[in-house]
C-alpha cells in the first residue's frame, strides 16, 4: 500500500470527500462515470498497486470473451434467420446445440482463466502442502514446491463479480458491455473492491453509468450508514479482535470456557466487522446515488441454518445460488438420479419419495457449501467449515419429515414465540460450531476446541484468562453495550423489515437525530480502536 487508505482511515474519508466534490461538480453529465472510474483506479493503485495487472487482465479477458459470446449468439441467430426456410427442424436443433456448446466452451475459457488465477494464487500452496503431507505419509520422498504468492486486493470479489457477468452474457440475461472502461468500473468500483458485496451486473452497472445529481437526503443517509459502519468496525469488531488475536496466538493455553467465550466474541466481531465494512461501502456508494445490495439481514435472528445463509453475506449466497447451486441441482446427472431413485422400491416409500425429491437440492447444497468453505481460505479447517454447514443443511432437508413428525407428536406450535426463540438459539449454536473452525488456527485445533467445550470447562480460570487477552474490564463493558445495541437495533429492524433505521430516524424530532449522530461521532473518536497504540485490524473478509 502506497499509503494507508483502508476504509476506516482518515485518508479514505478525505479521498471520498474529494471524489464527491469532483463527481458532483463534473460539468459533462454524460461522463460523470469517468470520475468514479478514475477514483476507483486511484484507490486500487494506492491500495494494491503491485497487483493491478491482475484486475486489468480479468477485466480485459471478461470484456473480450463477453463480446465473443455475444458475437457467436448474434451470428448464429442471423444464420438461423437466413436459413429459416432451408433448414428443417432437426438441422436447426443440431445447429443450436453446436452453438450452445461453442458458447459454453468460450464461457468456460473465461471461467478457467479467471478462476484459474484465483485458484492458483489462493490454493497452490495449500494443495502443494497437502500433496506433500499425503505422499510423505506413504513414505514417498517427494516435495512439491511452495511459492511466495500474494493475493491481489479484492481478487475473490472482482473475480466472482466479473464471472457472474460472463455467465449472464452467456445466458443472454444481459447484453455485453461495449465500452471496456465501463466494464473496468463495474469490476473495480472502489467502495466494493475490498470486501464486496458481489454485485450482479444488471443490478449495479446502469447505476454506475447514469449521472447522479447531488441529493441531500441520499448524502445524509449515506453518511449515517458510514458512521454506523465505523461504530461497528472500530468500536466493536476491532476491540473484540484484540482478545481473539491473543487467543489464536497461543491457542492451546486456554480452557474450554475461555474458548467458548472467544467463539461467542468471534460471532460478534465477524458480524460487526463484515457488516460494518459493508455499511461503509454502501454508505459511500449511496452518496454517489448508487444502491448496492444489502449483504446482511440480521443473520443471528435466523431460525434455520438455511435461513442464516440467506441472511449472511447475501451477495455471495445469491451468486452461488444463481451460478452454482441451480446448475448443479438442475443438472441432468442429479435429475436422472432423482428419477431413478423414484423407481426403486425405496423410492416408492414415503421416505424414499421425499429423499428422491430433495436429493438434487441437498447434494447441491453440500457441494455449494464445500465451495463456500474453500472460498474462505486454503485450509482444511475451511473445508470442515463448509462441510459442517452444508452437511447440516443437507440433513435438515433430508430429515425434514422426521422433524415435522416430532413437532407434531410433541404438539409444538411452530408459530409460538417460545418455539421461535428455540429455533433462533438452535441455529446460533450451529453457526457457532462452524465458527470454531474459522477461529481455530487449524482443523485439529478446531476439533480440540469442540472437544474442550465438553471436557475442558473451567470457570475458575475464566476470569484470570480474560485478564490476559489484552482487554481491560471497561473494554468488555463496551463490547457488552455494543452487542446490546446491535441486538436492540436488530429487533427494531426485524419488526420493520421494509424500512431502514435511517428512514425511521427521518421521522423523529431533529433534536433526537442530532444527539444520536453527535454521540456516534464522539463515541467513534473516543472508544474507537485506532492510532499508533494499536495495529489496525484489517477487515476479516478482505483476506477471503
Amino acid at each position, binding site marked *: 500500500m502506497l499509503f494507508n487508505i483502508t476504509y476506516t482511515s482518515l485518508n479514505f474519508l478525505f479521498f471520498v470527500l474529494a471524489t464527491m466534490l469532483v463527481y458532483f461538480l463534473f460539468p459533462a453529465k454524460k461522463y460523470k462515470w469517468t470520475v468514479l472510474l478514475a477514483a476507483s483506479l486511484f484507490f486500487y493503485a494506492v491500495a494494491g498497486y503491485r497487483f493491478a495487472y491482475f484486475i486489468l487482465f480479468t477485466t480485459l479477458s471478461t470484456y473480450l470473451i463477453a463480446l465473443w459470446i455475444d458475437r457467436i449468439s448474434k451470428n448464429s441467430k442471423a444464420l438461423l434467420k437466413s436459413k429459416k426456410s432451408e433448414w428443417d427442424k432437426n438441422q436447426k436443433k443440431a445447429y443450436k446445440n453446436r452453438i450452445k456448446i461453442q458458447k459454453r466452451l468460450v464461457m468456460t475459457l473465461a471461467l478457467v482463466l479467471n478462476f484459474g488465477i484465483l485458484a492458483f494464487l489462493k490454493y497452490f500452496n495449500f494443495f502443494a502442502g497437502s500433496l506433500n503431507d499425503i505422499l510423505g505419509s506413504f513414505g514417498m520422498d517427494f516435495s512439491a514446491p511452495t511459492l511466495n504468492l500474494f493475493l491481489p486486493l479484492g481478487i475473490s470479489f472482482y473475480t466472482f463479480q466479473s464471472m457472474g457477468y460472463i455467465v449472464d452474457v452467456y445466458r443472454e440475461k444481459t447484453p455485453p458491455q461495449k465500452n471496456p472502461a465501463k466494464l473496468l468500473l463495474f469490476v473495480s468500483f472502489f467502495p466494493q473492491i475490498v470486501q464486496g458485496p458481489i454485485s450482479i451486473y444488471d443490478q449495479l452497472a446502469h447505476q454506475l453509468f447514469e449521472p447522479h445529481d447531488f441529493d441531500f437526503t441520499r448524502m445524509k443517509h449515506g453518511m449515517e450508514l458510514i458512521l454506523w459502519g465505523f461504530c461497528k468496525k472500530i468500536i466493536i469488531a476491532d476491540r473484540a479482535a484484540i482478545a481473539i488475536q491473543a487467543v489464536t496466538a497461543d491457542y492451546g493455553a486456554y480452557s474450554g470456557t475461555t474458548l467458548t467465550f472467544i467463539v461467542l466474541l468471534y460471532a460478534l466481531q465477524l458480524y460487526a466487522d463484515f457488516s460494518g465494512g459493508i455499511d461503509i461501502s454502501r454508505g459511500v456508494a449511496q452518496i454517489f446515488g448508487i444502491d448496492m445490495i444489502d449483504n446482511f439481514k440480521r443473520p443471528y435472528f435466523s431460525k434455520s441454518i438455511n435461513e442464516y445463509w440467506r441472511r449472511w453475506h447475501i451477495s455471495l449466497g445469491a451468486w452461488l445460488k444463481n451460478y452454482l447451486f441451480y446448475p448443479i441441482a438442475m443438472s441432468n446427472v442429479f435429475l436422472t438420479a432423482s428419477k431413478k431413485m423414484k423407481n426403486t422400491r425405496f423410492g416408492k416409500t414415503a421416505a424414499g419419495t421425499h429423499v428422491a425429491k430433495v436429493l438434487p437440492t441437498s447434494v447441491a447444497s453440500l457441494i455449494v457449501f464445500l465451495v463456500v468453505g474453500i472460498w474462505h481460505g486454503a485450509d482444511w479447517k475451511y473445508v470442515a467449515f463448509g462441510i459442517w454447514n452444508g452437511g447440516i443443511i443437507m440433513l435438515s432437508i433430508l430429515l425434514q419429515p422426521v422433524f415435522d413428525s416430532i413437532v407434531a407428536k410433541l404438539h409444538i406450535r411452530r408459530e409460538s414465540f417460545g418455539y421461535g426463540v428455540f429455533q433462533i438459539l438452535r441455529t446460533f449454536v450451529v453457526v457457532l460450531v462452524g465458527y470454531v473452525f474459522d477461529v481455530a488456527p487449524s482443523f485439529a485445533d478446531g476439533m480440540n476446541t469442540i472437544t474442550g467445550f465438553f471436557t475442558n470447562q473451567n470457570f475458575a480460570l475464566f476470569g484470570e484468562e480474560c485478564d490476559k487477552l489484552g482487554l481491560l474490564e471497561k473494554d468488555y463493558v463496551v463490547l457488552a453495550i455494543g452487542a446490546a445495541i446491535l441486538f436492540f437495533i436488530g429487533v427494531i429492524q426485524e419488526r420493520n423489515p421494509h424500512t431502514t433505521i435511517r428512514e425511521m430516524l427521518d421521522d423523529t424530532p431533529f433534536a433526537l437525530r*442530532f444527539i444520536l449522530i*453527535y454521540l456516534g461521532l464522539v463515541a467513534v*473518536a473516543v472508544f*474507537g480502536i*485506532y*492510532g*499508533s*497504540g494499536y495495529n489496525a485490524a484489517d477487515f476479516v473478509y478482505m483476506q477471503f
Partner: protein
Amino acid sequence: MKKHTFLSRTAKITCLLLAVILTLTFLQTYVLRKLDHNMTRLDGYYRQEQGELDVVLLGASEVYTGFSACRAYEKYGFTSYPVASESLTTDGMMLALKEIIRTQKPKLLLIEPNAYLYNETKNEKIEAHTRKLVDNIPLGENKIDFINRCVDKDLQMEYYFPLIKYHDLWHELPNSLRRTASAIEMQLTDSYYLRGFRTNTEVFKPSDKVLNDKIIIENRTAKLNKTLEKKMKELLRFCKEQELRVAFVRMPHMVYPATYERVKRSNEAAEIVQEYGYDYINLEREWRQAGIDYKKDFYNYDHLNIYGTVKLTDYLGEIVQNKYGIKRHALSGPQKESWDKAAKTFGKLYRYCDEQIKKGHTESINEDMMTLRRIEPY
C-alpha cells in the same frame, strides 16, 4: 432547493460539527490527555507574561526537582522558571529553546546538559520522552517545524491531534476526572504557585556504592555519543546565532559505578561548552560547595529532595546574582502578588515535605490543586 431549506440544513450541519469539534477539543485538552506535572509546568510557563522572567532553566527532571523558582525569588528576588520535562531529548531541548526565545527573551538562560550525556541515543527514540514536552507546547511555527523534522510521517497526525494517540485514556475515567478538575481550576484561578516544581518526600538510601567523593577530583573526559555531540553543538551554535546569554549547569546526582562514565562525559561536555565561550557550572562536582549532603538530600540517584533543592537553589541563586548580576526587577502589581504567593506556597510545601519525610511517608508531590490544598494548612 428553497433558500430557507438550504440555510436550515447548513445551520444544522454547522451546529452538529461545532458540537462535535468542541466536545473533542475539550476532551483532548482536559480529559483524554496526560494530565501530569509536565503539562502543568508548561501551562504555567506560558502563563508568564513576556519579559516577566529574568532567568529560564532548560533541561530534564533534574532541573525542576533541583531548583525552585519560588525559593530563588524569595531569597534573591529574580524571577525564573524551569522549562523542562522528564528525560527531555536533544530535539526537545532545541524546540524548548526556540519556544523560550519566542516567549520570554530572559536575561540568562541556564541549560542542564543531561540530554547530551547518555552513552547512546536510546533516550532520543522513546516517544514518551518527546511527547512529554511536545504535547504541552501550543501549536505554532516551532512545533510544526519540530513535527516535520523529527516525527515519522505516519505519526505526525497524532502530534497535531493528540486525541488520536490518547483517546484510549477513557479507560482511566472516572478516576482521572480529579486531574481534569484540577487542570481546569488551575487555569481559571492561575494557581501555578509552585512554578513547575516537583519532588518526592523521601530520603534516598542507595543500594550501590556512592562515588560522589571521588568525582570531585575526577578530571578525565570521555567522548560523547557522536549523535548527541552533534546535537549539542547545534544547540550551542544556535545560542551563538541568537546572541543569548547562556550558562550550562550540571545538576548534582548521586553517582555510582554504573553512572560514573557520565561524569567523564560531563567533563568532555564542559570543554565543548567552554570552546563556544560559555560557562559550565558543574554542580555535580561542586556538591560540597553547595552544601549538599548526599546521605540526606536526594530522593533517588538522579534527583534532589526538598532539602537538596533548597541548598542547591540558594547556591545557584547566589551564582546567578553575583556572577551574572541578575537582580530583582520591578514587577507589576499582579505579577508581584503572584510571585509573593508562590514564595509563600513553597514555604508551606517545604514544611509539609519536611513533616512527611520525618514521618517516613513517601509521596510524590506534583503541582496541582490537590497538592495546593494539602499544603494549605502548613
